[in-house]
């Protein structure tokens, strides 16, 4: 069919005067690619509207269910891949060979890797750690203590945590109603005690703790990082009448070491 005839046909269709036989012909020309859907004005307008239509978003419940299922599947894989370790004498030559191969693979890979690939990998790793952070922050707000514990433990999988994450961990340490979550938050904060801001916040936290377990754990941490600035806060605990005697004994011991 000639181009002018096709154009005539399209014009007829756009004016709404094409008969069923001509519509059938248009279908054939669409199938063969000689007519594009965008040429059919009214239909293409309708199509555009469909594409612009906003859709509902799924609820957070879907996220919870999906991530739980994913965690399950990961556990399942771990179980499948666990195996008994053969003797070292059997393994050693193989391990040495594998190490050599891996190292040479890495060095070849390093030199062959293009900058685009490097940036894609970096982008992906960033995306994964952002996701973990987002998931951790949202899990911390859950009613269930188990979920909040899961959130705190997620930080151990992060290479580097943002201030947002450490602030959330301190919020859990100071305000969570569950003692286990508070203790887990304290554990999760430990890797970052080299930062002075973290140490200051830990000292401030001593005052807001009422649970003997958390008080003792904080006192022990202060001793292990030799944080002398914490002595005043610990002394205040000693003066507090509601502090149990066993805790007071432990704290006096800690103060002695720190001084």
């Amino acid at each position, binding site marked *: 069919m000639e181009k002018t005839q096709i154009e005539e046909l399209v014009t007829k269709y756009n004016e709404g005067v094409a008969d069923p036989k001509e519509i059938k012909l248009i279908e054939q020309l669409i199938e063969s690619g000689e007519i594009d859907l965008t040429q059919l004005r009214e239909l293409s307008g309708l199509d555009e509207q469909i594409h612009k239509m906003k*859709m509902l978003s799924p609820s957070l419940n879907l996220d919870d269910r999906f991530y739980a299922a994913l965690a399950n599947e990961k556990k399942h894989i771990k179980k499948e891949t666990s195996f008994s370790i053969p003797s070292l004498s059997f393994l050693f030559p193989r391990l040495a060979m594998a190490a050599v191969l891996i190292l040479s693979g890495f060095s070849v890979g390093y030199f062959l890797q293009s900058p685009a690939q490097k940036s894609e990998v970096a982008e992906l790793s960033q995306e994964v750690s952002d996701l973990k952070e987002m998931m951790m922050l949202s899990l911390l707000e859950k009613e269930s203590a188990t979920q909040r514990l899961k959130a705190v433990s997620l930080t151990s999988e992060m290479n580097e945590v943002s201030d947002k994450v450490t602030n959330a961990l301190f919020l859990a340490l100071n305000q969570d109603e569950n003692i286990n979550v508070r203790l887990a938050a304290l554990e999760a904060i430990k890797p970052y005690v080299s930062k002075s801001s973290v140490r200051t916040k830990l000292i401030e936290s001593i005052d807001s703790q009422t649970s003997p377990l958390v008080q003792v754990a904080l006192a022990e941490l202060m001793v292990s990082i030799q944080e002398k600035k914490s002595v005043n806060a610990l002394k205040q605990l000693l003066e507090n009448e509601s502090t149990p005697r066993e805790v007071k004994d432990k704290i006096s011991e800690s103060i002695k070491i720190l001084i």
Partner: protein
Amino acid sequence: MEALSDNVLMMRVKEGDLDKMSLLFERYKRPLYGFFYGLNKEQELSEDLVQNTFLRILKYRHLFRTQGDGDFRAWMFHIARNVNNDHHRKKRVKATEDLENWQERVGHHENQSSEMQHTEEHHMLSMAMDRLPEDKREVLLLSKFEEKKYSEIGAVLGCTEGAVKVKVFRALQELKVIYKQLEKSH
């Protein structure tokens, strides 16, 4: 670029790096939900079907093959269609509804439509979409969520790119007629 990344991510999942699945989930949970909601108009059911689709992707990850861009998306929508069909087969839902049922559904949808559409025009369009037969509604939804990539849709539906275009043309023709009827009655 994004389609290629989808394939790369899915290949990593296939190799056992399941964490990458969460990236695909974050990218596609909304389009999939939109697809299922467009077909079923039920929030909870649509979430169930999205969950089932991702579970199947995980279960059958060893079957994923890639030959070019858009493979993952086509594969995912192919699974999504099967999940939807299986659900309806199990529930023995009738393929066609009588007018009374249909009106009930539109009424139900009208209550929720404020969340879905912002303009009267879109509202009417959504109502017209609901009146389309399921196969036609499905092809338009696939076209929406696969961003008019007709060859990809062909892979999902098991037909040629040209045949998909004809299906879209027929669906749009029927939609136009319904839309005009609705305009007159308003």
